[in-house]
């Protein structure tokens, strides 16, 4: 579908239909895509491969680029799908059922009287104020490293990729109730870790 072309004299750079420039992709977007992938999967080699695959897929499907989004946004869209496919493949080969019992215990956070072991402190500022704070995201990334594999993937797909929970369950091969328990565990772990490493840091 061709974008509407206006009078070339009044066309601003933004309105000019966008063209893909694959010969510049590695230079312009290589590191960006790489870091995007590393924010979602741990393995550096896998992340590199995904970036490569994304670029190649981009060249192959050049025609499907409508020009409505930027080059980068379009490439990220391709990369996102590849990340999810990689995760799906991982759990097809090694079913999550083995990991679930290991990872599902939330008992570590609660003492025998069933109160939280570590009393939560009040946070300043509210986390919503920290979206632009680099230190906060650094602390978050470190805290996420601590999550066990399946828990981390469940969290990433839900909160970072904003996937629908039914789709996540089928991607990971787990039941709905397992998923909610894992997500709970992820949130407890991150809450405590962020408290210790960011909000209450010395």
């Amino acid at each position, binding site marked *: 579908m061709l974008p509407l072309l206006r009078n070339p004299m009044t066309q601003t750079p933004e309105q000019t239909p966008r063209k893909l420039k694959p010969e510049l992709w590695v230079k312009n977007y290589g590191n960006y895509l790489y870091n995007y992938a*590393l924010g*979602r999967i741990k393995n550096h080699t896998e992340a590199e491969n995904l970036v*490569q695959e994304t670029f190649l897929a981009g*060249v192959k499907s050049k025609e499907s680029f409508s020009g409505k989004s930027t080059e980068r946004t379009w490439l990220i869209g391709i990369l996102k799908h590849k990340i999810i496919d990689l995760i799906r493949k991982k759990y097809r080969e090694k079913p999550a059922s083995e990991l679930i019992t290991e990872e599902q215990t939330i*008992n570590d956070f609660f003492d025998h009287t069933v109160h939280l072991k570590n009393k939560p402190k009040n946070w300043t500022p509210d986390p919503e104020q920290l*979206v632009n704070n680099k230190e906060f*995201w650094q602390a978050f990334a470190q805290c996420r490293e601590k999550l066990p594999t399946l828990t981390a993937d469940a969290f990433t797909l839900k909160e970072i990729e904003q996937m629908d929970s039914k789709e996540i369950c089928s991607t990971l091969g787990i039941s709905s109730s397992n998923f909610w328990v894992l997500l*709970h565990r992820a*949130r407890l772990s991150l809450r405590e870790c962020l408290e210790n490493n960011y909000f209450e840091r010395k």
Partner: protein
Amino acid sequence: MNLRKLIMTVLLMIDCKEASQLLSDQLDNPLPFFKKFLLNFHLALCKACAIVAKQFEGLKKTFTQASDREDILFNNQEKCLSEECCQKMEERIKELIR
């Protein structure tokens, strides 16, 4: 065991572990009436869980906002692809373009 804690647990009908799971669940799905009632009752009496409730909500908002933004990479380091890797990629792209 602390008597006060024991009384609190009995009165609260659900314990902090259950409350915590409900707090997490309600971020994504509205709770059925009775569970919501039990949770709110617990939160009214349990300061720790009331703090956790606020923090869970705050973090949820933070992640939702961040996931819409391309400039937030959820990564704590700015890594670079190796020269070698970049060259390899550029070659493969060139091959495909031809």
